[in-house]
């Protein structure tokens, strides 16, 4: 069965830790890193990467445009 798999890449230095991407993800992929970036913000990361479908919700809600999304169809 064809399955869609996605992944996100966060520009962690530019992430402001607003967490809007966390709430926007339908499959609960994103978490906030304990570590902070050089500006002092906790940044987003894929805490649950297998669940990502590449739906881009997180990327389009991100006010700072720091998320890139990749998607493949596997069979």
């Amino acid at each position, binding site marked *: 069965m064809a399955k869609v798999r996605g992944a996100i890449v966060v520009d962690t230095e530019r992430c402001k830790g607003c967490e809007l991407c966390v709430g926007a993800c339908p499959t609960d992929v994103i978490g906030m890193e304990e570590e902070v970036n050089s500006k002092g913000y906790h940044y987003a990361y894929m805490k649950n990467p297998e669940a990502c479908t590449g739906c*881009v919700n997180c990327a389009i809600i991100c006010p*700072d445009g720091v998320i890139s999304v990749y*998607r*493949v169809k596997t069979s």
Partner: protein
Amino acid sequence: MAEITLDQIIQPENLVYTKSRIMTDTVLHYCPGCGHGTAHRLLAEVIEELDLQADTIGVAPVGCSVLMYNYMDVDMQEAAHGRAPALATAIKRLMPEKFVFTYQGDGDLAAIGTAETIHACNRGENITILFINNGIYGMTGGQMAPTTLPDMKASTCPYGRDVRMMGNPLKITDIVATLPGSYYVTRQSVHTPGNVRKAKKAIRKAVEYQKRNQGTCFVEIVSNCNSGWKMTPADANQWLEENMLPFYPLGDLKVPEE
């Protein structure tokens, strides 16, 4: 079949979304979660998709977005508080073949710049106006705006907006829609992914319609100001949905007759 690895997914050919090249690499100065960034990005994407970079002249007046010219890789002018539609009027009339937009806050567009807004729209200037309504004066630290809701708190109405004393919130977009010079008038928001998608479609129309030379295209974006509202970004978006949207309902107010 072997599981596909992240490294295999994260390959250039699989890229489905990344920041528009019309956005520069400068870090936005906006507070975390502020809708200004999202609105900028949508406009940038539309300019990129319609291949308008070489034709675009933008105007951003005083307000939190005064430094928009640092983020958009297009020619831009910085205007005095409230006056962007006057600048845009002249730009478009002198160079009718260009794409001209203004990007204005609610204090800017609906208080100090009310006359310029109404008259540009009433003359039917062929410009596109993006109006960010966050119900507050963001840049100056959260004072009451013309759009502040009844009973909503702001630093110059710390006990809430008493409409008998401070006047009523102004639905300027509704007024703009009644003017013969406006062509496309819509109210959108960017607080959920679904709304972002709709807002982008609206912005795209407002940009594309400028080519028709039929009048002013006006997109209000109901947005947040988590700093001014003193909320987390997620709470602010929730509050926006529960309080702003009933007063400023989303949807088209005026659409072209096809």
